[in-house]
């Protein structure tokens, strides 16, 4: 019985999800409006802006087609993050390119001159040089502000592993940015 105890999730999108299940067309658009910005941001960070729209589109299609199977054990936004991470990793594999090479350069619109690379671009550049899974965890924490527990739900890893990977991501970023000698 203990295993089957259901934790009540306070999901602000629960009612919209329910409306989707009842076939109300407007609800799909509501879910999109609520989730598309973070999904797109994550996709852009993972695969680059060039392919982010494709990955975002695929993520929403997977979500909407799989809606009957969404069991509400996590927040809908958490589920979307998870789909976005998986779709991004799958996209990188499909393109047969090494993930760490995919974002070796800052996005084209920021790449004017090496001297113009400010801190923001430098971090984008450094993020492109670390493992995509570490990149995802760093993004979820630092940009989306997810807790370790929420990240653990997204990437299906124990919280302790999330903590150690986030630490590793920061350590590698610090090295790439040349902040200080590695500890």
């Amino acid at each position, binding site marked *: 019985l203990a295993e089957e105890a259901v934790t009540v999730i306070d999901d602000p999108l629960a009612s919209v999800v329910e409306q989707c299940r009842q076939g109300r067309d407007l609800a799909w658009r509501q879910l999109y409006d609520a989730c598309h910005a973070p999904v797109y941001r994550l996709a852009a960070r993972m695969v680059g802006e060039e392919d982010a729209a494709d990955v975002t589109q695929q993520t929403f299609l997977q979500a909407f087609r799989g809606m009957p199977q969404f069991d509400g054990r996590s927040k809908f936004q958490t589920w979307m993050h998870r789909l976005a991470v998986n*779709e991004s990793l799958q996209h990188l594999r499909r393109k047969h390119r090494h993930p760490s090479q995919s974002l070796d350069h800052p996005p084209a619109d920021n790449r004017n001159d090496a001297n113009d690379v400010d801190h923001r671009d430098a971090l984008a550049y450094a993020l492109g040089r670390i493992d995509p899974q570490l990149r995802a965890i760093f993004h979820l924490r630092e940009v989306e502000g997810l807790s370790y527990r929420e990240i653990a739900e997204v990437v299906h890893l124990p919280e302790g592993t999330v903590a150690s990977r986030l*630490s590793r991501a920061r350590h590698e970023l610090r090295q790439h940015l040349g902040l200080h000698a590695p500890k």
Partner: protein
Amino acid sequence: MNCQEVGHRLSAFHDGEILPLERDAVAEHVGHCEECRQYLHDLEQLSAMAAGMAQPVPPPNLWSAIETGMNEQQPVSIDSVPENQLYHRIRGPIVRWVGMALAASALVAVWIGVKTRDVASHDRQAASVVGDICAACAGGETAVKPLPPQVVHFEKADGAAVSELVGYRPLVAEGVPEGYRVMATVAFKTPGCTCVQCSCRRSDGTTLTILEHDTQGKTWFGARPVSICKCGATDCQVTDVDGARVATWTTGDRALTVIGFRDTFELERLVAWFDDRRRNRVSELFERQQRF
């Protein structure tokens, strides 16, 4: 705490995601250690840089593209399917178990093909047998068919008896990672090899099948399209068997195959876990030899 102990915790300390007891110890250390204080300062700088990064804005026509896609029936990529959707065509847990067991048997059959026939013949057999299994899984209970008896025979044995039957100590016999419960362990005895099948249930009720065998065929998945997924230092061959994601990799002299894994994170965790088991076993063996 010394610098090394604190170093592992500074990231979580920075996020306020550390146990209160550890937090006090880390805070005390940082108070008198210039190097760790500098590291913490760097983490704060990193967060400030992340907060200041320009965030991309979705294109305005994105919703139109999604609406168009919703009206089309497109194939679903294997790694993005919500876990429960993988088995949506299988009605009920019993049929799911039968389907998974038959899928496992099919993989054994495919491997036998590698051992006993040339590659072309093997691929034909694989296509035939795996195709049957896929149809059985997709078609519901009424479509489930037994495999041809000349292809696979198997005997059942639970727990320790498995080791005796297969002639080696399976890694899966030592347990499974946290979060899984072993439902059944079966040893397949075939003309070409012996194989241990461990059927597990996740805490959310979904299932995963793990196969362990002592040799690995290069064309284990027959003519199916295979991609390579790198899990740590291990290359896993990944394919899709009728919606179920299947991966195989070698660890030492064993090959492991998982059927129905959810995503790369779960696969990575399983690979790491079984690699640890093998390394522990090698260490035990080494220590035993040292003793004698």
